[in-house]
């Protein structure tokens, strides 16, 4: 028994942010269950939550990756939109009316692969102009944000595209043992990225890059390659989010998901990623995603609460969390000084 006690203590001390997040998670869950019990605790609510969070969840992990390396990716939402409008244009061309079910599914998968390729290219472009050309991440991704959104507008002609083969939405909206397939995709992505950051050499190098890029350079690491890998991973996650988006709405438009940029930063910061780089983990981000989704669904249950109040809450929450983390940090430093 003694050893387990120590382990729990280590766990709690080692990752205070995680403990706090779990407490917030429990508190939010309790609040939602107490105030809207019958609606909140229903299976259909959990299923609809499961359908909603993977797309912004993946974007948040992508944003977390960029913040982790000391950068930021403002273009991430538009990588997702660009991927989805490319699917929207290609798929109807590839699947003709006479195609069999099997070929249609094949073509949908080919489109998905192409969409991910788009994500890779966009991410590499970000990484290239940030690390090789030397443009600060804020500006570089501000530029590519306009560029990607611009291409999405040109491709769609500024309007909504719909009318895809049925196989697309069937595939994205499938339930496996009652769990939406998108949730499974999200979990796999979160585990892979979490594993890379926590357990691999690449993850450690990215952490060092986020803490002190000069030091990594003098250690002999290839900063250009590291930055490009990081933004490429964000790009892949974004394009998967784009695939989920087009499947869920069954349509594509150049400004879908425009509000996700702020939300993705909020979630990453809430999950314990330091916007100055080098700190945090994906477990924290994953819990933050679920907390935000619970609050969002809970707000939906009040009919007279306008959608716009969510904007106020997210904005206020972001600033509150920044200040909260700051205060905690100062306190911890003081405590450490005393010791």
């Amino acid at each position, binding site marked *: 028994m003694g050893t387990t006690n120590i382990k729990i203590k280590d766990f709690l001390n080692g990752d205070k942010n995680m403990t706090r997040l779990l407490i917030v998670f429990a508190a939010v869950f309790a609040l939602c269950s107490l105030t809207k019990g019958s609606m909140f605790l229903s299976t259909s609510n959990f299923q609809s939550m499961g359908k909603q969070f993977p797309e912004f969840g993946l974007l948040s992990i992508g944003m977390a990756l960029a913040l982790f390396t000391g950068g930021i990716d403002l273009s991430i939402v538009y990588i997702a939109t660009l991927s989805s409008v490319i699917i929207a244009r290609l798929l109807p061309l590839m699947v003709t009316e006479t195609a069999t079910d099997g070929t249609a599914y094949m073509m949908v998968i080919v489109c998905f692969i192409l969409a991910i390729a788009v994500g890779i290219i966009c991410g590499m472009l970000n990484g290239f102009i940030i690390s090789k050309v030397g443009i600060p991440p804020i500006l570089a991704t501000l530029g590519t944000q306009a560029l990607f959104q*611009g291409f999405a507008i040109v491709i769609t002609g500024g309007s909504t595209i719909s009318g895809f083969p049925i196989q697309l939405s069937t595939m994205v909206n499938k339930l496996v043992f009652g769990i939406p397939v998108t949730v499974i995709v999200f979990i796999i992505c979160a585990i892979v990225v979490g594993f890379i950051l926590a357990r691999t050499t690449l993850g450690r190098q990215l952490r060092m890059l986020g803490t002190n890029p000069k030091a990594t350079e003098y250690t002999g690491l290839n900063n250009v390659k590291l930055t490009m890998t990081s933004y490429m991973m964000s790009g892949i996650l974004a394009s998967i989010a784009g695939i989920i988006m087009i499947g869920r709405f069954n349509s594509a438009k150049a400004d879908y998901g425009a509000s996700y940029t702020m939300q993705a930063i909020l979630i990453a910061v809430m999950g314990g990623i330091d916007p100055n780089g080098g700190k945090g983990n994906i477990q924290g981000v994953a819990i933050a995603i679920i907390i935000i989704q619970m609050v969002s669904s809970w707000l939906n249950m009040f009919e007279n609460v306008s959608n716009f109040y969510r904007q106020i809450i997210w904005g206020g929450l972001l600033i509150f969390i920044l200040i909260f983390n700051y205060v905690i940090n100062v306190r911890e430093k003081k405590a450490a000084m005393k010791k």
Partner: protein
Amino acid sequence: MNTKRILHSTEFYIAIIAALFCMIVQIKSGQFFTGNNIVDLLRSFTIPAMFCLGEMMILISGNTDVSFPAIASVSMYVVCTVFDGVFTNPLMFFLMAMLIGLALGAINGIIIAYFKFPALIVTLGTSSLCFGIMQGVFNSKEEPLGEVLYRVGEMKLFSVTNPQSGLTSDMPVLVLAMAALFVLGWFILNKTMLGRGIYAIGGDAIAAERAGFNVFATQMFIYCFSGCMAGMIGVMRATMMLAVHPNNLEGMEMTVIAACVLGGVRITGGKGTVIGAILGMVLMTVISNSLILLGISTQWQKVFTGIIIIIGTAVSAIQTKKNEKKLAVKMAAA
């Protein structure tokens, strides 16, 4: 300033590029240097150019603010709807909006200057707050402009009619306000200790503090100034459009930041001139307004904005890298 320095400045290149671009449009369409086109360009230049002033101060101090369109929209909406019919003097509307903007800017300033958070993230948050308050609490929608401000909007310096197309364009009075604002901005940045403090903070905040600059007060000033200006510009926008459009400033932060950076304002801080930012905005306005004259669909506008931002910033980034290398070589030789 000697000629060599002028020839090597970013402002000089931007002016040349802008002039070349104007020539190309003129040759292709024959419609560029017509009275009404110039007036139209000035009309669409006025609002974003005034935003440039506040934003460039923040960029020079080494931060990025994306909340000014939100501050402008919410101040404008509150003033134009809640206070509609309250005042008979149009100046009171502007004053009210400036006060609201000042308060919102002060909130930004306190959070950023006291806690030293990245301004981009903070202002993304406050921007969402402002738009949320406007759309949720005030339930914003498109509304007609009140009588007092409508009369301000109808005031014009002169009108120009294009003899070929028969289109008439009015030169708004607000162009004068813009000119005054530029002078004010130039004066603050170049002729006051406060302005030098902004440059010093952007160069190196710790060094500035040691040199005796009050970093907190200077930062508070720039966010309050930017907020105050944003409030005023919001109402100006409403008078120019002769209607209250709550959402159509959204996204302008991109154009404004791009213009500043194009004009040689360094995003990492410490460098930039009012003339440069103005020229950057001239180039942005000319390009985005001339796409139609060149026969390019407006759908490409965003793509062009993106390419301009990337190329413009790449040039200055590469220059900085070169200078660093030169410096390193010099230091090694010494």
